[in-house]
């Protein structure tokens, strides 16, 4: 037989609070709710773990292979070897894990229909998106920094004289490692906003692979004429490459590259916000 609902224990009454403090209280509640959702999904740690194993493994594999084959290389190939760039090559692929992480944070809600409960609990949809953005950023930036540092140290540990190796203190090395981490974290946000816009896991994942993997290979093979120099370096993947390469030809400088990537993420975020507010859930 039914028990009647007991009076509601309200944790945070808003009456008597200033509008600013009430707004903060509301934002904190949305953040707490999104955090519970994020941490109670198995796919989140699975994707992060997959990214870590893949990245560190590939860095170690590539560096070990160079170490083993060094004796057979001709002088030109030896001169062209860049220990940092070779080590960080995994970033071309790790970026997909982070993009997928961001996308799944949103598309999994659309896929199951949970998004209706989410928006019924918090009709201020902009705040839901803001909370997701903050959490995806707060999870992916430290994770990416740790991943890039460990993959760098593990990769370099496989290199020994006569193969040139780098330490974090060498010029440009730390910048490349942190640049790589920023690239990964920004891509997670890119994936999140893409997920809001397309609302479907397969479409979001296909688009991520297309933008970050297929498009760069396709256009990098074109002849490097003036038109190429004014367009191709500004693809997200090439801006990212400019962030983590110590030596690049034809790509943007690291500063403008970071700015460009940020602008992409902000534009996509603005489009996502407009969409989430106007469309029926």
């Amino acid at each position, binding site marked *: 037989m039914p028990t009647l609902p007991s009076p509601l224990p309200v944790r945070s009454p808003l009456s008597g609070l200033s509008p600013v403090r009430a707004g903060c209280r509301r934002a904190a509640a949305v953040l707490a709710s999104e955090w519970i959702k994020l941490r109670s999904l198995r796919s989140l740690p699975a994707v992060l773990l997959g990214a870590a194993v893949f990245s560190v493994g590939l860095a170690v594999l590539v560096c070990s292979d160079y170490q083993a*084959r060094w004796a*057979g290389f001709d002088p030109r190939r030896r001169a062209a070897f860049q220990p940092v760039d070779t080590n960080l090559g995994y970033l071309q*692929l790790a970026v997909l894990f982070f993009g997928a992480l961001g996308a799944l944070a949103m598309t999994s809600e659309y896929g199951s229909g949970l998004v209706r409960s989410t928006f019924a609990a918090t009709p201020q949809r902009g705040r839901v998106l803001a909370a997701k953005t903050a959490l995806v950023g707060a999870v992916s930036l430290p994770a990416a920094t740790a991943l890039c540092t460990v993959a760098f140290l593990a990769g370099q540990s496989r290199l020994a004289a006569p193969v040139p190796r780098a330490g974090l203190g060498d010029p440009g090395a730390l910048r490349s490692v942190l640049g790589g981490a920023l690239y990964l974290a920004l891509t997670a946000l890119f994936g999140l906003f893409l997920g809001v816009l397309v609302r479907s896991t397969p479409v979001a994942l296909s688009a991520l692979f297309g933008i970050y993997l297929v498009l760069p290979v396709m256009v990098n093979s074109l002849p490097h004429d003036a038109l190429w120099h004014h367009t191709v370096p500004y693809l997200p993947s090439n801006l990212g490459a400019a962030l983590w390469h110590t030596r690049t030809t034809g790509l943007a400088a690291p500063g403008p590259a970071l700015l460009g990537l940020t602008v992409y993420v902000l534009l996509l975020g603005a489009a996502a916000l407009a969409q989430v507010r106007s469309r029926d859930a």
Partner: protein
Amino acid sequence: MTATGLPRLRAVAGAEWIKFRSVRSVPAVLLATTLVLLLGAGLVSAGFRSGWSTMTAAERAAFDPTYTSLRGIDLAQLLVGALGVQTMAGEYAAGQIRTTFAATPQRGLVLAGKALVLGSVVWGLSTAACLTAFLLGQSLLGSPARHAGLGDPGVSRAVAGGGLYLLLVGLLGLALGALLRRTAAALAALFGLLLVLPLVVGMLPGAAGDRIAVYLPAAAGSQLWTVARGADHALGPWQGGGVFLLYVAAGAAAALVVLRRRDA
């Protein structure tokens, strides 16, 4: 299969066709596939035309105008592959698969019906789109860049090969969808096989990597729509296509075994 096999397959394929065409996203994906093929042809061909004067003699000699105008396949395979994955994994996500298997307990027949429907739509559409992309690309390349005609050696085979390649990608996606049942996992496996694996192998120095690389699914399959011979170890068009077909057949066989053994 007994004497009733063929009519049964026809009925199953008919049912699968109704399901396939009534999913709302299917026309959008097919339209996007066509657009991406034409857009890829337009952009890449225009890029080579504008940069032709900056290319060295060696680069010009290695230039493959047919392959260039079909480069949109690289993007189109994402869409066609996703369509294949979703044709099977989408039914699992919605729980529809139980109804499907209740209607046709011969699960191999269901997979065959889906392959027939997906395959004929994808093959027909991408062959037509590849031909259009080829003609568009060649008209853009024009002079000064080198361009090809359908009568040139290997060209019509490459244009038809583009459609065959996309057909096989779609079927591989279908098999992986049946094998893994979950959209995200099957897509990751498909794209990992086609796109990530070659990059990983490419990062490894040494000739061993090159020798393996040509047998990877995408590299082998892309020989179907290439005219010029690329790397030293590269397979010929039909060997390459055959290797890719083996991957798809292996995937389909695994899917068949798993579909029969596993509870729906």
